[in-house]
């Protein structure tokens, strides 16, 4: 039964599937919960260990699926899972290493997995999260990263796999580094990314933006940004700005939608829900979110502007498919209204091109 359910989900195809692997207790489920379900990081302490592979689907610019494998499983028990099919169907393999624990066995496991995955699917992206770095001191983090990179490189050399590209990220669920890492990982899976970045660059140039992000509203992952370097503080402020706009808007729902929205809000925001209850609600929650995304697309787009005392302006404009454009900009006081109209116009054009691009992507 288990297996049939699994293979069913593998059929989903599309390259935008992320496979989460790692030893047990390395923090895979916590990552999933925090990034995709808005769970408070502290609440993840009470998660049970995962026994079955779980698949989550997310509808965004791309249809993202995240498959999570139980940590304690032995890779070479082919009776249980069809690994060949699994690895050919995924776009990225994310391996989570607990940096606070002894990581030598994790590295061995990783090397074996990489060897197998690459032999089956040479195009696979391999990403390594050096996780739980919140417990390490600043200079120790870099040492750990260097050590792990060194060892992985040596292991791969032993297997004769010098050419494999592996990316490393330092992550923790208690700050924004995990979102940053996931943003990078997801971006690699978006086929249209160069075109998107080009568009954003153009938009930035003509609208006087300092920085512009294209966010997925539900997960706060940015699917694209312009080519200027990402300042993590800008990112955090933008991500929280989305929360502010959505929450404030949600408070003044019109009556008809309210009941339905209210329960959803509670599900989303209730930080004290015990995890058991949450597990039950998970499936229905997932569908309601995707419905919500569709509903949002039909309604008038949400727009939000906020000015700060140093002249910075935060600008949010809702895009298609649960995406939002968030920009940081600096405006001269003199011609604010004209500048804003220009921005509005430019953003509207950007939205149109996004829609067009999406049309084409469907028929790809």
């Amino acid at each position, binding site marked *: 039964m288990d297996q049939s359910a699994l293979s069913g989900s593998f059929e989903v195809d599309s390259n935008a599937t992320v496979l989460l692997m790692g030893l047990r207790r390395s923090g895979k489920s916590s990552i999933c919960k925090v990034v995709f379900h808005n769970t408070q990081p502290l609440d993840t302490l009470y998660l049970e260990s995962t026994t079955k592979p779980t698949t989550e689907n997310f509808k965004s610019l791309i249809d993202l699926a995240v498959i999570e494998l139980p940590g304690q499983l032995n890779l070479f028990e082919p009776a249980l899972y069809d690994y060949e099919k699994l690895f050919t169907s995924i776009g990225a393999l994310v391996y989570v290493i607990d940096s606070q624990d002894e990581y030598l066995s994790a590295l061995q496991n990783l090397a074996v997995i990489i060897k197998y995955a690459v032999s089956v699917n040479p195009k696979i992206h391999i990403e390594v999260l050096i996780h739980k770095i919140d417990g390490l001191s600043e200079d120790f983090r870099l040492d750990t990263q260097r050590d792990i990179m060194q060892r992985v490189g040596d292991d791969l050399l032993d297997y004769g796999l010098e050419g494999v590209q592996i990316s490393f990220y330092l992550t923790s669920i208690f700050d924004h580094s995990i979102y940053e890492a996931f943003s990078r990982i997801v971006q690699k899976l978006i086929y249209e990314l160069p075109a998107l970045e080009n568009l954003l660059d153009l938009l930035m140039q003509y609208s006087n933006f300092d920085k512009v992000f294209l966010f997925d509203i539900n997960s706060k992952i940015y699917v694209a940004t312009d080519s200027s370097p990402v300042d993590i*503080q*800008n990112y*955090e*402020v933008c991500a*929280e*700005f989305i*929360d*502010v*706009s959505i*929450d*404030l*808007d949600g*408070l*003044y*729902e*019109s*009556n008809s*939608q*309210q009941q339905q929205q*209210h329960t959803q809000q509670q599900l989303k925001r209730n*930080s*004290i829900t015990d995890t058991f209850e949450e597990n039950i609600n998970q499936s229905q929650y997932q569908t309601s979110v995707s419905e919500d995304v569709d509903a*949002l697309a039909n*309604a*008038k*787009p*949400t*727009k*939000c*502007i*906020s*000015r*700060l*005392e*140093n002249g*910075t302006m935060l600008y949010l404009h809702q895009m298609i498919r649960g995406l939002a454009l968030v920009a*940081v900009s600096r405006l001269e006081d003199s011609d604010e209204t004209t500048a804003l109209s220009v921005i509005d116009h430019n953003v509207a054009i950007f939205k149109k091109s996004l829609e067009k691009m999406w049309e084409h992507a469907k028929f790809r």
Partner: protein
Amino acid sequence: MGRSGSGKSSMRSIIFSNYSAFDTRRLGATIDVEHSNLRFLNNMTLNLWDCGGQDVFMDNFLNNTNENNYNNSSSANIFKKCEVLIHVFDVESKEVAKDINTFKRVLENLSKFSPNVKIFILIHKIDLVQSNKRQELFQLMYNNLKNIAYNEYGFKITGFATSIWDESLYKAWSSIVCSLIPNVEIYEQHLAKLNEIIDAREIILFEKTTFLVISSMDRFKSNTNEHTMNPTLALDPKRFEKISNIVKTYKQSVNKIRSNFKNLILHGKNSSIYLDVLTSNIYIMVIMDNNIGKDENYEVNNESLVLEDIKIARNLFEQIENKPLS
């Protein structure tokens, strides 16, 4: 006041010093009394006395009444000219009888030194109770304390269930602070006038630094007879506190890029929200209905209209604020 560990200093730091709920873990025990002064709405000064709750300090506060040097005793110092007592009860406390006993002794002192005091009790850390039992437990505690206070000392008290992890804390504190503002009526009068002009769904005034709600006005408050079905009732009754909470979090996050929040305009799918500076101490929030079916320019025109109205109102409220207390 309250027992040690009941969360008095945490509350104060969140409301008045921009701590986040998580940061309050770092707070240590308060030694004796910690005074803080706050300017509030320009001409009002709040003296906040945070009294340490360990038994040693408590005994010190309460016990000196029988001595001869009546006026110099610390209890006289503490309880003299008291405007408001906020007594905090820890919902998890094991020694409820002792807590109530302390509360009684505080009331006794107050009836002696400042009989006109307003008393608020906060049943704190309510997040530690299962959500379906919260209301029941709170009513039980509240009724009990109300009876004690009224029957034995003639005080009327107001109670709230609070937690630092949600918006209930803001609700409690904004009612406390509102009871202290002398010219609330003037604000409300002018707010009603402003609302007649703008015809907003709701207007809310916030204090600037703490973002506590000072006053609010919705379209249906003034003429309830005509509208028996009051649509605002359908809105989230906790929305004020939630807004306080949301905006304060936002203000903190904006601090990361070394700046302060000035204003915010939101055109949502349900309503348009304008949040702007009204006076040097007050923020105003105007919520307009979305008129579906109007032409495209409606939103733009409306925006400039509302902003202009706020600008005019600014002068007026500035005047009220600077008026000396009569």
